[in-house]
Structures are given as C-alpha cells and as structure tokens.
C-alpha cells in the first residue's frame, strides 16, 4: 500500500464541507498544517505488513442485539423538543428548504 499524498488546503476545504463545518481561509491554513503533522505521524502504520489481518472494529464481536417487541415507555414529544433552539410544537423549526431559498 502506497502512502497517500500529503493533505492540501483544498483537501481540508473538502473535508470541512463533508463535516458540515464552516471554515475561514485562516482556519484552513491553520488546520492544514496541524492535520498534515498528525497524518505524517499516522503514516507510521505503513511500516507494517497487515496482509491477511482481520480488521478489528470493536472489542466485542457483536452481531445483533435483540429484545422482545414489546411496548416500553420512551421519551415524550415535549421532552424531545425541550432543548430545541427553535420549534413550533410538535415540530423542530428549520430554515426554508424548498422553494426560492438559495441552493445547498
């Protein structure tokens, strides 16, 4: 496996977009240098031959955890909305998504 090429400012802009994080040019510059240093250190993993090694995603090799399909008390609508920064009960409120709003 070849080492990926170093992270660029354009990569960081792309990743910020995927991460839904608004970034300024100054942020991009700052984060690119820091992430490059961390990724360089992570490149150490390329020293190892991992062919044939089973990936370990979790300490417990769980499959599905099921429970009987029985009604149980859950969170109420009022409680779910209690921390909403904007709401029109029983709904969460968001800016206009359809129509003449700017496209995403």
């Amino acid at each position, binding site marked *: *496996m070849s*080492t*990926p090429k170093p*992270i660029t400012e354009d*990569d*960081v802009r*792309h*990743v*910020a977009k*995927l*991460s*839904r*994080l*608004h*970034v300024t040019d100054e*942020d991009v510059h700052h*984060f690119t240098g*820091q*992430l490059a*240093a*961390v*990724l360089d*250190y*992570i*490149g*150490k*993993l*390329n020293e*190892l031959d*991992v062919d044939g*090694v*089973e*990936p*370990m*995603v*979790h*300490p*417990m090799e*769980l499959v599905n*955890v099921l*429970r009987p399909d029985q009604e149980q008390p859950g*969170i109420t609508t009022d*409680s*779910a909305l*209690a*921390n*909403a*920064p*904007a709401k029109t009960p029983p709904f*969460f409120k*968001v*800016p*206009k*998504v359809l129509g003449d*709003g*700017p*496209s*995403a």
Partner: protein
Amino acid sequence: MNPTESTLIELRDAIASKAVSAVEATRAYLDRIEAHDDGIHSYHEVYTDRAVQRAQAVDAGDVTGPLAGVPIAIKDLLCTDYGHTTCSSKMLANFQAPYTATAVKRLEDAGAVILGKTNMDEFAMGSSTENSANITTRNPWDTDRVPGGSSGGSSAAIAADLCAASIGSDTGGSIRQPAALCGVVGMKPTYGRISRYGLIAFASSLDQIGPFTHTIADTALLLKVMMGHDPLDSTSADVPVPDDIDKVDDAPKNLRIGIARQYMSDSNDPAVAAATQQAIEIYKDHGAQIVEVDLPHTEYGIPVYYIVATAEASSNLARYDGVHYGHRTDKAADLIDLYCRSRAEGFGDEVKRRIMLGTYALSSGYYDAYYDRALKVRRLIANDFESAFKSCDAILCPTTTAPAFKVGEKADDPLSMYLNDVYTVNCNLAGNAGISLPGGTTNVDGKDLPVGVQLLGPAFDESRLLKIARIYEAATKYYVQRPSL
C-alpha cells in the same frame, strides 16, 4: 471525624453508624468546594440544594444502600435529568438532558449524593482540560500545572478532597492519565462493563466509564455498584460481576507480573522509571514471579487511536446540527449553512480537528489507506495483549512518561499532546481493563508532583486486577499523600 479527610468507605461507615450525619458530610464537602475550588476550577456546576436534600433523605432513612450519603462528583458528559450536561462545550452550554445515565442512576440508587459536574476537555478530547470551553482546571499539587485530561476536573476534585469519589470516562487514557498526574486511583474497567447509556458519545468502541478514588477498596465498591449489563446499552457486556470484587485484600496466589520493554523506555522521566522499578521490587518481595512479555505493536497505538477514535467521533458528533438541541447560529442563510455555522460556532478547535481528521480517514480514496489499515493494526495490538496474558496475570508499567506538565506547555502542539496517551491508549483499543495507582511524588521546581504506576489486566477480570493492585497499595500507602491547598 472530618468527613473530607476519610476514605469513601470510612465515610460511608461513619454515616451508617451515625457518627456523622449525611448532611454534615455533604455540607463539609460543599464548604470545602466553596473555600478551595476557585483556585482549582474542578467543578462546572454544583448542585448544593439537591445534594443537601438527598443527604437529608439519607439521614431520615428514606434513602439506603451501599453508598448511602456518600458525596460524589461526576464528569460533565454524564447525563442527569437535573442541572446541565455540557461536555465543557459551547455547543451544549444550555443542554438539559431528559434522562439520567445508567451509571449515575446506579450510584444514586445505592444512596450516593451527587455534588456536581466536573470540568473536562471539550467532548473528552484532550489530555489537560485546556480544551474546555469554560476554563482550565488546575492541578491541586501545583496550580501552574494541568490535572491531566480529559477527566481532569474529576481527578482534581478527588485529589483536593472536594468529593469522596468522582466518576470519569476513559477513551484513550482519560481516567488513568489524570489519575496519575493528580496522585489518585483511576480505573478503566473492561470495555462494556459499565453501561454507556447517558454517556455522551465520543468514540463508541473505546469509551468506558470508571471511578477516581483514593483507595483500591473504594474503587472496588464503586465498580460493584456501577458494573453489570444494561438493556439500554446494546454494547454493555452480559457478563456476571464477581461477588468477591470488593474483597481486595484476598491476595492472589502464584502471581505472575508481566514487564514489557516497550513501556520501559529510556525517555521515561527518572521519577516515573523509579516508581515502576519500586513496584517491581514490591511484587518480587511479595513472592510474585516477574516475567518479560513482548508487546511489539505498542508504538502503533497512538496512530491507530487517532484514526479509529476520530472516525467514530466524526460520526457521533454529526448529531450536533443546530436543530434538535445545542447551539444554533443566528446567521444562517439556508439549512446547510445553519448546520455549518452552528457547528463552527459551537465546537472548539480540537473537536473540529478531530471531526475533520476522522472524516478524512473515512472519505473516498482514503478509507483503505487509513481506516481499514488502522483496524488491522488494532487487531495486532489486541493479539499482543492476548498472548502476553497467557504468561502473566497483569502487566506492570508507567501510566504516563512524566509528571504533570505546565498549563500552556503543549496547548499549541496537538501531536505532542496526543503522545500523552502512549501508555494508556492500547488498553482501550484492545478493550482490556487498566488501573493507575498513586506511585509517590517527585519534587519539581519546589513542588511535589505525583507519578502513576499502571496495571493492565485481561478483559472481565477486574476482580483479580484490583487484588493485585491492593498488594502494591498496602506496601506503599501513597494514597495518604495529599496536596496542601
């Protein structure tokens, strides 16, 4: 008796025998917080009225249990249906959880009095509490220095006797590292031992709740109360908790202590090396066999961790959208802009770095090179431990390479901060149990600073690990050392 100078069990027994009332004990801690926490900043929120009411209920006999009347502090990422749960983030500054974490509920069902929530690195990402959006907690031994992190508020609170015990969480060392830097016992149980229900998620395959105390016996009691399967957390282990877990004085026979050269680096601070060496001698004197074990992939733990933990964090923290709860920008042009600006305003730089790093590692074109490769090396690290535990009962090593560093010393260098976890992180990757013990102090610039000694044990055998730890504690009694405030 002075309630703030006793161990948790001594205090519990004194309350049970009416030598001291639960209200007196709670007020003694509240007074001490009032008097000393301004210089330490271990608490973010103190529940004075609620704590006193709970203590009154204990004194009236309405609340009973193995922790009746004992005042405990909890890390500010454990949800309670009272007060705020903020993760020391601007994102959750006003968040009031609709339910209580299972671990906290079990403490309260056992009679504990929750004093308040402790400061931490934002979303548990850090090793110093300097990433808190609120304030940096100070090390009670030297307030120019950090208490460690991310559970630094919890470690500072117990070290300064501002609670009888505290609770933290450990994703890569966030209980054990601050325990070492503050001179207290801090334990990360096996992954899955304590329910994560109500623990605000950072990295779900690594996060584990655990206690900070002065003594092993106190830790054992808290584990006995908190551990065990919880139907509300599908990753909580359905493995019975041994009845004898709190019989910490039953020293195991034919003990084999493992030493791994990978943890005995020349770069360890001399005081750290000396503390580890002293621990080896203590186990030898006890009759234990000292065996060399090999953990050849140790040095790859930090790189694996910073892929696995950030990948999981990037997914877990996607829920903070400015819509359902948490910070919402007032500058949004449209829905996507609402997400992006709310998150940019609500998260601090370290959280942003980790979300971006994790997103990058999972993104198209990089998944195989980073994430998949990290998971394979994670397997190699877990295999190292599995074979090591065939020839020993526990691995003895330092918790950190050095005592507490100064506030600001590493704040602008993320990589150097990450390397703090070099001796703790592999235990999380493998899912094993680990405990940091007070290993005495070393004088630096005229201040006594604690160092930690760590024991790592196989999964689901906390009971034996605590008994092994108790041998060292009984021989050293370092837990009696306290900072002067």
